[in-house]
């Protein structure tokens, strides 16, 4: 019985519309991995096209592919392909669409990018503005010598 039901629902297709108008046809069970989309479907059963106003077509394509393919091996390779901007936008997308697996994968990827790096490098990569006063900076440098020594060369 359950098998029949999933067969019926998996063949149903849904259209997702990205913020730049790009359309994606996906199977229902793929779309349901996005809890935000799931909630949308739960609210209006007959909907055929779901707008995704916060996500560009480029990133939605990546997200959909991730959902289809995800496994340990794929995850390990996945995170290497994207630059920091893409990672950040993908994380925003995964957060909006509420896909916990992808969020976890992207958080790990972002954490990995700053592994063993100096604060100067991290600021550059994350585009963080240093709002510490010189005194505060000196104090931090002294207290957390660790963070400033023996790191990878920028």
């Amino acid at each position: 019985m359950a098998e029949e039901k999933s067969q019926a629902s998996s063949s149903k297709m849904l259209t997702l519309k990205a913020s730049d108008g790009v359309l994606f046809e996906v199977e229902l069970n793929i779309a349901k991995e996005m809890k935000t989309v799931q909630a949308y479907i739960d609210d209006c059963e007959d909907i055929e096209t779901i707008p995704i106003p916060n996500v560009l077509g480029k990133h939605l394509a990546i997200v959909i592919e991730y959902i289809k393919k995800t496994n340990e091996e794929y995850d390990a390779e996945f995170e290497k392909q994207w630059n920091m901007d893409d990672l950040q936008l993908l994380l925003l997308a995964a957060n909006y669409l509420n896909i916990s697996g992808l969020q976890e994968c992207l958080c790990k990827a972002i954490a990995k990018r700053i592994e063993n790096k100096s604060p100067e490098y991290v600021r550059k990569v994350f585009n963080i503005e240093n709002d510490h006063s010189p005194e505060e900076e000196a104090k931090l440098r002294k207290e957390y010598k660790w963070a400033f020594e023996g790191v990878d060369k920028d």
Partner: protein
Amino acid sequence: MCKDQVDSISFFSSLPEDITFKIASLLQDRDLCALGSCSKFWRQLCFSDSIWHSLVTNRWPLLHSSLSPYVKTWRRLYFERHIELGIRAGSVERFMKACSRNESLEVGDYLQAFETINGAMFGYEDIQRFLFKPQMNVLLNLVGVHYCIAILGIRGDDLVDVLRTCQISNRHVCVKWWKLGRWVYGYRGRDELLFRWVSLGDLATEEDGSVLGVLRRGTIHEVLRVQISAVGHKSIPWSYQVTQRLE
């Protein structure tokens, strides 16, 4: 790709707190300090006590249950313990160096060094960070390997993988021990010299644990003397007629 699209200030502020917290909580201690040094926002997040609490419990699971949480912050505790263990490892290294003659150590001194590490309740990560360094004397690496197997119960492939990552799995030690000659028909036979030349990786996968057994037991019963050296077996003195290489 348009860099303007990602304004980092709005990127991080448009993420819910639990996600930025998640990113911070995935970091090692050092990276956490680096990220925390970047700005006030990150400092407040990265040095929050809950993150350091989980770092303490992950690294020293037994320690945290015996502490009152009101004594100091978890962050302070983490730092202090890390530094303390580093100092302890340094003193063990100096002790072993002082006791060595021609790069060899007597088992009594070796066991004393071992007990110092044991007494401080080093954890697995502590051993890796403080004792498994390739630039250290191999005898100190040996104490670490012995400790992992005997006290932490870590052995086999898991341990070998770590030794490889630390680039010490192929370092060798030579363990020599002298056994009292047996009495036969009123005559005492010659004392025997036995030795094993093993890599740290071999020790980790050794099925019968015989080499570590020799170290652990030390000079007892018929074993007169046990010596551990960093040198290769070519320089073993052939001063005893009966020598037996154990396979």
